[in-house]
């Protein structure tokens, strides 16, 4: 029982990191109809920027986090402007190839700058562990969970209550009609990329708080898993992404504990395949009928 609870906590921890990343995927997909393969690598950039601020420039933690969020937001917007915007009317396949290209560009340029050697990430969360009913929960775990939940609620309120959020929903519903209603589509898409990348930066820092190593490739696996989470919950749906991420985190933690730790990645991918085959629209996704 105790072990089961520990695994649940593990699952919630990775689930909340996946959720932050999956939100970026799902928002960008909802608005730009693009699987932003480079999203996972934004996590890596966020982690490296935070790492640089803390070790090389010896900045305080709050400043480091702020700089890394700003850097990732700008990076996300620049990527959209330079690489995706010119291709808005091109075929989906070429957009996807460009996104893969961006992902490789980020990975290989960071590998050139920082080499492929893993760098130890400094400890950033040094609060005492929390003990509830005999289970001690490490500080990184509850901080990660709390930060993610706060950010998710904030995002939800932003999308539902503000004017910009309304514009985002309108663009994802029908970009053409939204434009006719006077919504600036380019600006809305930029904001979406910015918010998604900011969340990815936070995810990157939290990820490195749990697994204190930075390499140019740390982003790719959580990126792909978060993408699976987004598909699982129904891509384009914000609550879906969160739900999918927590389900995925739990599935992963439980397979690692009870089935096979070596096969957990394969099982996660099998979950994706099964989901895509039987319900490609996801748990909370809308079924869109194809029109001729």
């Amino acid at each position, binding site marked *: 029982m105790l072990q089961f609870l520990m695994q649940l906590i593990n699952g919630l921890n990775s689930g909340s990191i996946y959720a932050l990343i999956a939100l970026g995927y799902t928002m960008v997909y909802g608005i730009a109809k693009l699987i932003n393969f480079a999203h996972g690598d934004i996590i890596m950039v966020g982690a490296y920027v935070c790492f640089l601020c803390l070790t090389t420039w010896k900045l305080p933690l709050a400043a480091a986090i702020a700089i890394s969020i700003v850097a990732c937001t700008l990076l996300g917007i620049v990527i959209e402007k330079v690489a995706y915007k010119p291709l808005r009317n091109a075929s989906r396949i070429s957009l996807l190839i460009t996104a893969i290209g961006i992902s490789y560009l980020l990975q290989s340029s960071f590998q050139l700058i920082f080499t492929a050697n893993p760098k130890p990430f400094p400890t950033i969360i040094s609060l005492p562990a929390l003990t509830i009913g005999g289970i001690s929960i490490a500080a990184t775990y509850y901080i990660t969970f709390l930060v993610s939940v706060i950010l998710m609620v904030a995002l939800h309120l932003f999308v539902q209550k503000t004017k910009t959020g309304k514009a985002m929903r309108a663009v994802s519903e029908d970009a053409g009609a939204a434009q006719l209603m006077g919504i600036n589509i380019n600006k809305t898409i930029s904001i979406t990329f910015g918010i998604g990348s900011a969340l990815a930066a936070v995810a990157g820092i939290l990820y490195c708080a749990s697994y204190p190593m930075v390499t140019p490739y740390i982003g790719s696996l959580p990126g792909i898993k978060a993408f699976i989470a987004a598909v699982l919950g129904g891509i384009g749906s914000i609550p879906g992404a969160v739900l999918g991420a927590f389900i995925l985190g739990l599935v992963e933690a439980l397979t690692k504990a009870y089935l096979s730790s070596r096969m957990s990645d394969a099982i996660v*991918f099998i979950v994706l395949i099964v989901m*895509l085959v039987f319900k490609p629209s996801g748990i909370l996704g809308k079924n869109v009928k194809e029109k001729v």
Partner: protein
Amino acid sequence: MKKRYQALSFWKKTAVNLTAVLVVYAAIMGLSAVGIVNKYYMGILLSTCINIILVVSLNVTTGFLGQLTLGHAGFMAVGAYSAAFLSKNLSGLPDALVFILALMVGGIVAMIFGVIVGVPTLRLKGDYLAIITLAFGEVIKNVLLNLDIVGGASGYIGIPRYSNFSWAYWLAVLTVGATMALINSRQGRAIISVREDEIAAEASGIDTKRFKILAFVFAAFFAGVAGGLYGHYMGILEPKTFKFDKSIEILVMVVLGGMGSIRGSVIAAIILTVLPELLRSVASLRTLMYAIALIAMMLFKYDPNLVKMTAKVKNKFRKAGKSA
């Protein structure tokens, strides 16, 4: 030159192509016999041929069928492992026969996996299809990592080294020939029609599902053969060779050569295999260059402003060429 070639009849074209193929083969074998092309270069040429097979076959699904697949390395892995498994456990037959059987089995097992991947993906298209092929590729890699009968993570060792340049060369020729035959056939035109407009193709009575599967199975078969060649060349197989990056590497070659162009695929496979080998000193820049090439290709092809600009530059050159 090009016009005169295109005016030739089918048989004459085939004769010209075959002669060219033979001349290239004779030249390479001659140079190797004299010692100008040493063993190291022959190795590069062999990998080039393997890559030609992979790229041309991926072009069938990505270029001609128009469905982005990100798991080609998975098919290659299946072929490589099953071929190696056969040739390691089959004794008493002449080497050449074992090798042919192994390659066939590699291709056929990969083909079966092509069906397994192809059938459930029929309902999906575009992004989802790309993702599901990526997932299949990763599952295959992860299963191989944990399959102790083929060595697991430490690699499958002791595979007889049957591959040599001649095998790879003729199999590459066979792949290109088969792909050209497929594309120029009724089936091939049906495959292209799915890419152009799936709904219109269906309305014209084309069984789009059947042709999607056909393209998948065709591509998987040759990827499996390429895997078999690779395994019997290296003598050892490691699951990490067949990760996502390998699929992307093949995709880069398809995109650079031109989606839907067999000749382009062959040229891109040659350049992108030989160039990194010759530029070993800047090997770390390789993925960076791949990435930039991918993005630049897409932008120059589809960005309206860049398209206009390149057209202008081209026009200028044309005018300059005419007035000179």
